[in-house]
């Protein structure tokens, strides 16, 4: 089966510019996650969607970050305006929602988008 797709793979922008990342989860996966991973650290959950709805966005800097998941499939994560400290890899993951037959809530990760803010 096809994995989680993300684009672009790399992005370089200047501070105060805006940027958007796109994610296409595995077909049939109800749950979608966006993570930020700064070099040398573990991934940090930014937002979790269950179908169209937001389950957890407690660590999303809402003054500059926004995310949406229209029709419960693809998702976009936007940063506006970007800061130097936003330089990181942005990972998208998806999983089956427990109750859909998933014995384990395994998260399948995409390759990530590497963002550099200058």
């Amino acid at each position: 089966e096809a994995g989680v797709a993300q684009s672009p793979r790399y992005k370089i922008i200047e501070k105060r510019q805006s940027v958007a990342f796109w994610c296409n989860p595995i077909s049939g996966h109800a749950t979608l996650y966006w993570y930020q991973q700064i070099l040398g650290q573990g991934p940090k959950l930014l937002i979790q969607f269950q179908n169209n709805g937001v389950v957890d966005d407690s660590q999303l800097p809402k003054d500059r970050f926004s995310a949406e998941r229209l029709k419960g499939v693809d998702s976009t994560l936007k940063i506006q305006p970007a800061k130097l400290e936003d330089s990181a890899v942005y990972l998208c993951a998806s999983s089956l929602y427990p109750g859909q037959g998933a014995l384990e809530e395994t998260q399948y990760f995409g390759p990530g988008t590497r963002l550099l803010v200058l």
Partner: protein
Amino acid sequence: LAKTTQPISMDSYEGQEVNITCSHNNIATNDYITWYQQFPSQGPRFIIQGYKTKVTNEVASLFIPADRKSSTLSLPRVSLSDTAVYYCLVGDIPTGGFKTIFGAGTRLFVKA
């Protein structure tokens, strides 16, 4: 949420068995233990998951003592390609509220 503690890094040689221990003293009754592996420039990949005792799959084994306050990921006969970061996560799956918190992980270096 149960916090996890792992060694920052470990070194090993090809062909050896590697055991990475994760401490989770505040694990709750409904919490499962999950391990992920991450190679450079890739997203994390699920390795193994367990609730108690021992779980084994084609990649690794997971040992969980009776008190469940720690767990040990065992990688048999590692190769150079096992060099990666390994993350231990604890969360409540059955209720659908598995909150994913990755720590810094353990960086495993396998030498020839």
